C-alpha cells in the first residue's frame, strides 16, 4: 500500500483526512483516487502546473512524472508550490 500525504488546504477539502493508504501502481493512479483529484488535475487531465509531487522525497517531475511506479511502501507527498514572501 502506498501512502499519500496532503497539505492542509487539500486535507480540509478531503473531510479533514491528511493521510491516505492506496493500492496504486503509479503516482497518477494514486492521485486520481483521491477525493481532491479535481483540485490536482485541470479539465484536460493534466497535473496543475503549481502542484508538486514527491515520491520518497524525490520530485516526480524529475523522473517519469505521473507514470512513476510506486512500491508497497512508497510515500507520495503533495506539495503546493511556494510563492511570494
Amino acid at each position: 500500500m502506498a501512502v499519500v500525504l496532503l497539505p492542509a488546504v487539500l486535507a480540509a477539502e478531503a473531510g479533514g483526512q491528511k493521510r491516505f493508504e492506496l493500492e496504486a501502481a503509479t503516482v497518477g493512479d494514486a492521485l486520481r483516487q483521491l477525493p481532491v483529484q479535481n483540485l490536482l488535475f485541470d479539465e484536460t487531465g493534466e497535473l496543475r502546473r503549481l502542484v508538486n509531487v514527491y515520491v520518497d522525497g524525490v520530485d516526480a517531475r524529475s523522473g517519469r512524472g505521473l507514470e512513476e511506479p510506486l512500491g508497497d511502501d512508497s510515500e507520495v507527498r503533495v506539495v503546493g508550490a511556494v510563492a511570494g514572501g
Partner: protein
Amino acid sequence: MGVLLPVGTRKGLFLLRSDDDRTEWEVEGPLLPGWSVFHAAVDPRDGVLYAATNNFVYGATVHRSEDLGKNWERAEELGLPEDGELKLSATWHVEPGRASELWLGGDPGVLFRSDDGGKTWEVNRGLLEHPTRESWQPGAGGMCTHSIQLTDGTMYVAISAAGSFRSEDGGESWTPINKSVAAEFMPNPYPEVGQCVHKLLAHPKRPERLWQQNHCGVYRSDDRGDNWERLDGNGLPTSFGFPLALDPDDPDVAYVIPEQSQEQHFTAEGRLGVYRTGDGGASWELVSNGLPDRAWVAVLREGLAYDGGGLYFGTQSGSVWTSERGGGQWTEAARDLPPILSVEAASV
C-alpha cells in the same frame, strides 16, 4: 430577521451579522481558509451559501454550504471542454436564477449553469463560442464574467474587456449591447465589442433600465442596453471606478465609488467617497459622512452591495463600511480583515 454580509477576502470568507438595526456587527471567520473568495452570496430560494473560490495552486471552483458556513461541499464537475483550447482560470460570480438555475461567471469570459445546486456545472456554449470572442481582450483583472443579471425573460452578462451581452433565449445566443459605450483604449473607440465593463446591474423593479460602471465612464440604458447614455461629470470627480449599487425601489438612484484614474487605482481626490445620484445620473452628490476624508484605498467591483435597508462596502485595506439606505451616515462594521474582494447582503 437579521442581515448577513458574506465578505469574500483574499484569505477566506468572513460573515458579518447584525439585526435589522444594522448598528452592531458580529464577525465570524475566516471560513474556507486557503481560498480567495472572489464572490459569495446566499441563495434567497433556499438559504444555501455559495462561494466562488480560487487558489493559485489548486485552481478555480465553487463551494456550497447548507448551514451558513459550518460545512462545505465543493463542486464535483466544473471546467471547460477538454477538446477546447481554453482552461478555466478563475471563478468570479455566483448568481441564483429562475426555477432551479444557478449561474456562475468565470475567466476566460465564460458562463456556467447548474441545475443541481452547484454540484455540477455545464458551460454556456453560446458565450463560449460567441462569434466575436476573438475580438475580446483580457484586461488587468483577466477576462472575467463578473456581472450576471436576470430580469423578466432576459439575461445579461458583462465581461471585462469584452463588453455587455443580452440573451432573450435563456442563454442560447447573446447579442452585444455596447452601442455608444466608449472603449477609449482601442483604435476604434466605439467598437461592437471590447468595452471594459467593470460592473453591470439591472434595476429589479424597472428591468429595462441598466446601469454600468465602465473603465470609460458611468452609463445608464433605458432600453435593455440598446442605447446607453454617459453620465459622468455633473458631480463625479472622475469617470473611473469599479463598484456600483442601486436602490431596490427607486430606479433613479445609483451609487459609485470613483477612483483617481486607470493608472491610479485608489479612491479619487484622496478621500473615500461614495457618490449618489437621485435623478438617473444627471447629477451626483458626495455622501460620505463618517468616511475618512484622507484615504487612498480601493473598492473592487464586487465590493459594494445594497438591500432594502442599507448599503455596504469593503475595501482592499480590510474595512467594511455600512450605512442606512441613502448613504447618509457611514460606520465601520469591521476592520483589519484581509483584502476584501466582495461584499453581498442577505436577509437571514
